[in-house]
């Protein structure tokens, strides 16, 4: 099976191969169980040798399901019910189980999302790589030298010392490189990357992406790159497919699809991506994608689409070819000529009063013996938003936890409205607990799954204000209305809500006691980009309406511009730079900030993408 293969380069340093189609997927359909509804359907695309296809979609769009089907695999409960996956002409879906096993790893390789979970923690790096080769004997001539070679290819130094390390002794980026090395070591024809850089820092992310691209080029490997991150994909791939509710709704060259998107969903998605270049109103897409089995007869996006007409609901749209790309939208041609307004650009920073609502002076914090923060200085003027930016491990969450009192092992001085705050939450007066509210990063863990939304939102009123029952529920209902959640949400449980709705509940819980300072800790990082835009806009509106001071903690420099007036850049627990947002983003002084800015993935054609995206945004807004 693996022996004779016409297209594979024989030498390690074969000239770049391109042109011929490596992977050809036709009408792939995957269903739930034997007779259940389809999860994905009508998936067709081709990937030539040496090219990378980006498969983009939000959570639940079916992108991972498609990625696994490329290896002939369906998750438990799913069944590949129709279509073909041809790799160099062979349909993988027709292969008997034994042959398929021989193909996996040798000719089709998979790089999973979380490298730490994918590597066996008890095996050394060298052993792990040799094992991959041992499973497929005869694929390469000399396994020992191949291991060293592939290490160099993924830019890991193949010293004996490195080969002896265990996965936990490597950084996240190194772990993912080992994952890549395992995938590339048998010189596959196709490599499937499932969000391989999610969870890595921007800098690491970019280096890993460069490696993937150059390896695919030089060895003629076809790659499918699955991601929710449009900016990452835009910078990496030449061809991109956008998935929505189990279908590819737009596929074509990246410059076309992201430059002049035609499908209303693609347009909405692009409008939701924050830009570090300009301060703009972000526009999300309201509503959520339908689940398998509830997708109706017509276009799945119609319910959220500003261009929808009654015909859209009649039958599922067939792909239309416009300018070398396929779009599943019956109105694509009209949308192309539609007027495209620019998104609203925000005015300059609101000048806050000189006195600070919160000031942090010389705060140093430790976890056990390890120092996490040292000498942090920070001022939050009333009614203004300060962004705290940094990579993972920079101490930004610890800083937030010191301020709200969840972390008590710190020294220095934090004053709120003139009064000093004591370290732990236990000794703080009720009034301070009420006026400083904290919103957690992950809305999937910050809501008690056994309580209704109404109970969750009313609880702080009981705890902090001691209000009677009747008044609690009245105020909870009002604040739910304020975060755009209707009346009927009060009786629901968190697991009946989407990620965006959960985060709104968390925001409502913080706002219900009418705080003066809101500390938002990475509140959008667990959310899809279209939802992130909605939440950030919501926060900005509420901050303005309720005259809140806000600390917005994020790793995403691009978001800072849309919400904050001042920014503070943290590195290894110390402030490296602080000042107005324009200054930090446009004229960063510290080399670290410069690097952070340079590493932010940007859309291939940002200017055009913005313009076009704004159209859908304007139209989709209710």
């Amino acid at each position, binding site marked *: 099976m693996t022996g004779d293969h016409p297209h594979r380069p024989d030498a390690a340093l074969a000239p770049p191969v391109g042109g011929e189609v490596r992977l050809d997927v036709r009408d792939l359909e995957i269903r739930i169980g034997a007779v259940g509804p389809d999860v994905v359907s009508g998936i067709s695309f081709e990937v030539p040798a040496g090219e990378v296809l980006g498969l983009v979609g939000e959570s639940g769009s079916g992108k991972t399901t498609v990625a696994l089907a490329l290896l002939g695999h369906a998750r438990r409960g799913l069944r590949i019910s129709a279509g073909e996956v041809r790799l160099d002409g062979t349909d993988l879906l027709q292969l008997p189980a034994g042959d398929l096993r021989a193909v996996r790893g040798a000719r089709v390789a998979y790089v999973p999302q979380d490298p730490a979970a994918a590597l066996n923690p008890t095996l050394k790096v060298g052993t792990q790589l040799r094992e991959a080769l041992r499973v497929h004997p005869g694929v390469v001539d000399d396994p020992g030298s191949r291991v060293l070679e592939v290490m160099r290819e993924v830019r890991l130094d193949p010293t004996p010392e490195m080969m002896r390390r265990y996965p936990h002794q490597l950084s996240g980026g190194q772990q993912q490189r080992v994952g890549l090395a395992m995938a590339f070591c048998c010189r596959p024809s196709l490599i499937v990357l499932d969000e391989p850089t*999610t969870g890595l820092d921007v800098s690491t992310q970019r280096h890993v992406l460069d490696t993937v691209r150059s390896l695919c080029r030089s060895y003629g490997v076809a790659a499918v790159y699955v991601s929710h991150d449009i900016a990452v994909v835009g910078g990496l791939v030449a061809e991109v497919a956008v998935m929505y509710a189990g279908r590819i709704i737009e596929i074509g060259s990246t410059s076309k699809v992201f430059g002049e998107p035609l499908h209303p969903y693609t347009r909405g998605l692009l409008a939701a991506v924050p830009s570090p270049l300009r301060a703009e109103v972000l526009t999300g897409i309201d509503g959520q994608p339908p689940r398998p089995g509830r997708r109706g007869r017509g276009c799945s996006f119609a319910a959220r689409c500003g261009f929808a007409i009654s015909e859209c609901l009649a039958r599922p749209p067939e792909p239309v070819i416009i300018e070398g790309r396929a779009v599943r939208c019956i109105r694509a041609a009209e949308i192309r000529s539609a007027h495209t307004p620019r998104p609203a650009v925000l005015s300059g920073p609101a000048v806050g009063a000189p006195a600070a609502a919160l000031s942090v002076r010389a705060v140093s914090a430790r976890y056990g013996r390890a120092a996490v923060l040292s000498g942090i200085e920070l001022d939050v003027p009333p009614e203004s938003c300060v962004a705290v930016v940094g990579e993972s491990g920079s101490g930004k969450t610890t800083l937030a936890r010191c301020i709200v009192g969840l972390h008590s092992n710190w020294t220095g001085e934090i004053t709120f409205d003139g009064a000093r705050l004591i370290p732990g939450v236990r000794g703080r007066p009720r009034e301070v607990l009420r006026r400083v*509210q904290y919103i957690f990063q992950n809305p999937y863990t910050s809501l008690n799954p056994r309580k209704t939304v109404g109970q969750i939102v009313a609880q702080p009123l009981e705890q902090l204000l001691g209000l009677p*029952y009747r008044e609690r*529920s009245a105020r909870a209902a009002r604040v739910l209305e304020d975060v755009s959640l209707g009346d009927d949400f009060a009786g629901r449980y968190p697991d009946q809500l989407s990620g965006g709705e959960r985060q709104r509940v968390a925001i409502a819980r913080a706002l219900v006691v009418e705080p003066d300072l809101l500390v938002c800790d990475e509140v959008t990082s*667990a959310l899809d980009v279209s939802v992130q835009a909605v939440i950030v806009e919501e926060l900005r509106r509420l901050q303005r309406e309720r005259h809140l001071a806000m600390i917005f903690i994020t790793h995403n420099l691009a978001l800072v511009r849309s919400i904050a007036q001042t920014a503070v850049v943290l590195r290894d627990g110390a402030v490296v730079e602080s000042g107005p947002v324009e200054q930090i983003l446009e004229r960063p002084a510290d080399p670290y900030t410069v690097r952070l800015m340079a590493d932010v993935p940007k859309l291939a054609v940002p200017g055009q993408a913005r313009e076009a995206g704004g159209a859908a945004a304007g139209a989709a807004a209710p």
Partner: protein
Amino acid sequence: MAAAAPSVPPAASARARRAGRHPWLSVVWAAMRTPRGAAGLALASLVVLIAVVGPWVAAKPPDALLTIPYAKPSGQFPLGSDFLGRDVLSRVLNGGWALLLMAAAATAFGIAVGAAAGISAAYLRGRPDSFIMRTVDVILAFPQLVFALLLLSLLGPKLWLIVLAVGLTHAPAVGRVIRSATLDISERDYVKVVELQGMRPVKVMSSEILPNLISPLMVEAGLRLTYSIVIITGLAFLGFGQAPPAANWGLMINENRSGLPLNPWAVIVPAALIALLTIGTNTFADAIARVTIGVERRPEEAVLLDDLTPRQSQ
């Protein structure tokens, strides 16, 4: 704890109710719908039915001497007679309810004490944790039956004492399980949220943590019920339990074992009922465990959950 807010329109609360939302009931309901759970529940219910309805349908008084000892089964005595010539069938029908009641009470007591200890140890940490867990270690050092016997021989064989003693022997094991479950839950963000609201520790434990321990508590309850039955019948067999004229399955096995060759039914029937009951409760507990850890999740649920799992990013 505030109940559902009054502002909830009736439609929404009805929807929540329809979703089988009562947490305890929904777990039991889900377990009942698996083949394993249905089988376990059917077995256990059968025995419970016999024990509960038995005293009313028994044809003869359980302690009347009616015939010769160890009479073979006949039309008048379907299961024959025991070592004193009493009707085995009537004694079987009468001999279960006290046992079941004691087992249920002992289990409830053990779960309550164990859960309280486990939650406090895990949530309060520090000294309370060390104190509770070392006490647990000491009690665990004795085999359950020996510990119960020790208490009974010190204080005398009273029925309420048997219940307390058996319950107390369960508490340490329950406490350990609940402690490790609580350690996980008390680190969740929603617990931090209420700490930031200045909620008192007792309330955090009872209103935030306890409702999220339903799965391990249900599993433990099923398992401990099985053990309670075994231990209480064991104690009855050894003579600690209801006093001799009373009908009791454990006691019956002891009393009639010497007549096994003459009328085996006097031993086999009570033994079989105890076996069926323990198998039933154990199987059902297993079904609950499987439902709550998701082994028997329906495939479409599994797919949707995988797709909707929050992504890990920084």
